[in-house]
């Protein structure tokens, strides 16, 4: 599970009003390289909840991201930033661990990189 995915996931348990962001419990992180695409990063940047993203990266062991959302102008030409953004967003994978609902504490397991968000009968 990439942090891009984590940034769009939300706990959808019945009654939960704020299911985002899910807390991350790390057991195993893997780095998988992927080719950088600046246009893609520029398009996705406005969608990202930066605080959730940088917190999550920190939990995964990556501390290079600024805690505050940078000005979008950095995406124009700041190669250093783009590389770090790319790395944290797309190249860090949570292989084993869990995502935790911030309101209920319910754990959604992550196995082989796949979060299982399926709810039980009593959670719908």
């Amino acid at each position: 599970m990439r942090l891009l995915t984590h940034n769009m996931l939300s706990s959808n348990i019945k009654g939960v009003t704020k299911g985002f962001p899910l807390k991350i419990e790390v057991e195993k992180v893997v780095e998988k390289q992927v080719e950088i695409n600046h246009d893609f990063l520029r398009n996705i940047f406005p969608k990202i909840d930066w605080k959730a993203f940088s917190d999550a990266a920190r939990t995964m062991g990556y501390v290079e991201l600024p805690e505050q959302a940078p000005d979008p102008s950095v995406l124009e030409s700041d190669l250093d930033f783009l590389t770090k953004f790319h790395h944290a967003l797309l190249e860090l994978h949570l292989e084993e661990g869990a995502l935790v609902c911030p309101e209920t504490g319910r754990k959604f397991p992550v196995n082989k990189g796949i979060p299982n968000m399926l709810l039980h009968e009593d959670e719908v």
Partner: protein
Amino acid sequence: MKEIKVKDASPMCTLAPDTEPRIQPSSSVSEDRKCSSISVKSTPEIEKKYVHHVYDAIAPHFSSTRFAKWPKVAAFLESLPTGSLILDAGCGNGKYLDAVNLPYRTNFGDAAISIAVLHHLSTENRRKKAIEELVRVVKKGGLVLITVWAVEQEDKSLLTKWTPLTERYLEEWIGPGSPCVRGSSSFTLESIPETEENGLGGHPKDSRVSLTENMQQSSCSTPQNEDDSMVSRDGKSQQEYFVPWHLPYHRAEVSGASAGALANGLAKKDDKKGAVVYNRYYHVFGEGELERLVSGMDNAVIVDKFYDKSNWCIILEKTLEG
């Protein structure tokens, strides 16, 4: 490149190897008084038995038969700007289907697609809920493409190979919360299907019909519409069906789910074809039905609608945030 799979409604994220990485995550109405008031998000029995369990068993085989391209879907995707983020709800070959409850932030995606998914939902409320979810997860101005199987099939003989579901049948098998079946045809005939949904196998068409001991005998006097769709006695269209899936024996052994399915009657063996036959629940859509489902929505409008290869299709645009 790499794949992100979110086990739930299915979303699957892929990064294409080209220069346009596109994340495609690979899911008012007055109810008929016969429907129960169970939560719309709770999975009805008919879907558990005849959608979830079936696809659990057939998923690898089903996956291997997905080869046909869908030009209209491709065109929709290509019409979107480069770098768009698209949610594909229901893309995982039927496993982990839960289209009425998508675990995504509101307003996130640029677009969403639901290809041949909603026809597995057994109540109108669940179908509406699924559409609401698709609209919820895209941004204001975002587009949603939905395709579903049509009552009006191009290959009309196909309908004769499906098992129409009667209200009585549904109540016996499914219990409370069963789909609101319009019409009251009181017969169920089990057809021996010859071809799969993609026309694989190439068997000659053969509409032999047999009555099983579980089924009620009745004369086959179902009146036909002008377009040959099945009609029940009170004149309404038959839209609830079991559609067979033949899982070859060698595939069934590998998946292991079939022993249990055969034991509890969920599937039958067809030695002649060397396959385990599963039934999948479908509510096929009539002309205008998708439009009616969305007509009550205050945050989306229809921007396109069309019929494509036996599917009714609709494109919605989200007009309000939230």
